[in-house]
């Protein structure tokens, strides 16, 4: 099954509207899950479950939202900032993410801003391409 990026976006939008109790027009491509859409940690698991159902593939733990295990590792996080090693690690683990200017001020409180609607669409798109 092939889907256009637009179709994937609409399906992701539907998942987020249901999971977070939003209106369609709030879920824009640039919206951040935590900041703009108000997602909390349990919502991330809910979103993963719903995406699996909507797109019909398994999403391994850590693939879509992989940062949780890195937070307690001093090699990756020091004094509330992501280290060089940490930055290299998340860029490797999250190839579907646009990091923008995060590297200039890698405050871990801003990590939430990296999870945008677009990053989910990118993830699903790459996943579908690799499953064909």
């Amino acid at each position: 099954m092939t889907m256009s990026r637009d179709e994937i976006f609409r399906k992701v939008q539907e998942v987020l509207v249901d999971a977070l109790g939003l209106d369609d027009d709030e879920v824009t491509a640039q919206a951040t899950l935590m900041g703009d859409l108000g997602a909390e940690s349990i919502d991330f698991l809910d979103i993963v479950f719903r995406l699996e159902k909507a797109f019909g593939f398994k999403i391994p733990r850590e693939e879509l939202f992989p940062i949780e295990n890195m937070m307690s590792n001093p090699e990756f996080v020091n004094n509330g900032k992501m280290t060089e090693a940490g930055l290299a690690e998340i860029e490797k683990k999250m190839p579907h993410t646009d990091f923008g200017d995060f590297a200039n001020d890698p405050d871990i409180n801003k990590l939430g801003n990296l999870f945008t609607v677009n990053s989910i669409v990118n993830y699903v798109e790459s996943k579908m391409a690799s499953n064909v």
Partner: protein
Amino acid sequence: MRWIWIDKFTEFESGKRAVAVKNVTLAEEHLHDHFPGFPVMPECLCIEAMAQTAGILVGEAKNFQEKVILAKIKKAVFFDYVKPGDTLSLEAKIESITAEAASTTGKITCGEKAIAEIDLMFSHIDRNIGGKEFPDENFVFTDTFKSLMRGVVFSEPD
């Protein structure tokens, strides 16, 4: 002691679905105030009954080794009142379950009548994303709680 809000399980398919029964009685004092002259079961307590039904189903799926906590009410839609004397049937199904969490769907009926649809998410809190630590003792699944399932999952004592 734990507050138990369902009476027994009538069906139990490990890791898949369970059906529990809750009898509603006017001896429950909150019904006297909710509302005076018109006693109906508060909808939040219908959610509690489903949370216990589905929560035990999720707990049993991992042999009661996880602390299963209600984390999110994904959906709660009510179609009718529940009154004293009603016998509710609560059917819960596991939709997804992973090491960290589970999601369930549920229906409450009273005889043929649809009462509610309640979909929930549970967290296995020792595996929470925030890395918070909790006591070793499993304060969720105490022996009283497990006794509900005697005859359905555990064999009857001789």
